[in-house]
């Protein structure tokens, strides 16, 4: 069994974004999704600091730090792109105009609860940014994360033990071992890594899993 690497996870996620979708990609792993959108598919990327139509990274030496994404990295603008102020940008988010947002997470509960902003540690400096707005606002809230913590515990849980970012908001979770669809009647596995028996995935994830009708059998 070989886990999916970061690029494979991003490519797997990107495959599910349809033509014409408006998408917000979070900082870190989710940002990689942009590099894997299938050629010829037109997808419009939003960044909450006030831009639609983000293009590829600028060549070295051509960065302009008045044109950045939410991770404060220099980006470019595609023809057809636009700029707007922060209240409009978050109006797009909260007003349910975005088709997808892709976020990282510490934990996701089987009912869709999301924890990704604070470990709850007493000495941690809390920071939330736009995560809570995205969690309530996007039509599809997607999480990308490794399934297991460094200690080997599943991050897909019965109930989040970390403070919540949003309640019952996550639709789907892309991990390095499998893709999970969170539905009213349970967690459905859409896809999992080759060479791993379903029973092994079940043991690692701990929370009860079902095979989606369309799932690939291992």
């Amino acid at each position, binding site marked *: 069994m070989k886990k999916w690497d970061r690029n494979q996870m991003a490519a797997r996620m990107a495959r599910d974004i349809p033509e014409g979708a408006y998408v917000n990609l979070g900082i870190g792993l989710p940002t990689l999704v942009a590099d894997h959108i299938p050629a010829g598919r037109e997808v419009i990327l939003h960044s909450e600091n006030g831009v639609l139509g983000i293009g590829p990274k600028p060549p070295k030496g051509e960065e302009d730090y008045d044109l950045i994404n939410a991770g404060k990295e220099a980006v470019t603008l595609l023809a057809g792109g636009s700029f707007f102020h922060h209240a409009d940008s978050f109006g797009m988010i*909260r007003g349910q105009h975005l088709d997808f947002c892709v976020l990282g997470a510490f934990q996701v509960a089987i009912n869709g609860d999301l924890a990704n902003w604070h470990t709850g540690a007493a000495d941690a400096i809390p*920071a939330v940014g736009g995560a809570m707005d995205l969690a309530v*606002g996007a039509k599809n809230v997607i999480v990308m994360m490794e399934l297991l913590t460094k200690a080997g515990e599943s991050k897909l849980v019965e109930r989040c033990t970390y403070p919540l970012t949003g309640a019952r908001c996550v639709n789907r979770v892309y991990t390095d071992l499998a893709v999970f669809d969170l539905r009213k009647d349970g967690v459905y596995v859409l896809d999992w890594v080759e060479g791993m028996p379903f029973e092994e995935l079940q043991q690692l994830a701990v929370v009860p899993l079902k095979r989606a009708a369309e799932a690939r059998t291992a």
Partner: protein
Amino acid sequence: MIDKTIATAAAAVADVHDGATILLGGFGTAGLPTELTDALVARGARELTIVNNNAGNGDTGLAALIGAGCVKKIICSFPRQADAWHFEKRYRAGELELELVPQGTLAERIRAAGAGVGAFFTPTAYGTDLAKGKETRRIGERDYVLEMPIHADFALIKAHRADRWGNLTFRMTARNFGPIMATAARCTIAEVDEIVPLGQIDPESVVTPGIFVKRIVRVRHAPQSV
């Protein structure tokens, strides 16, 4: 003749008083009014409440203001950054109060203040620690949290082009909080790259109409990149 131009950043912030609430534009360095912030450090007003998306980074701008001990409270969404050491030091020492606000709620609270809205219900943060102690209401099928506007004494923002009436345009994502902050303060001061004659900004392209702007200052040098 109306002319909102002020000769220097120092003169533009000369009446910022102790205890003032200040909206400070910018997301990272994009849209941060660097020269006005430096002038504010030099001005030395104390006990300030600063509203910004972040809590400063490195040793310049907002970080310098915090480092100089001018800030009593920060209202922001994302104070944690690798190089936010001035904030961290004072926050951990209990010398700096933090009000953490989700980014969209921060923007909307500023807009509400500028638009004369008394308060508003937002779904953001419902059921989380950031909604603790706040009034909630179920409207239709959804739960909402009541949020209050953020009024300020001053807004310090960075724009690209201005005319003497104070009409403003912005540059790319440096726009961020500028247009909404301009509406929410009693005195809005804009630092700009260029001041052009009246009529040279296409009226269709004006982002912030001059009614929201009291003072404009032209920057002396290009802002520092990251």
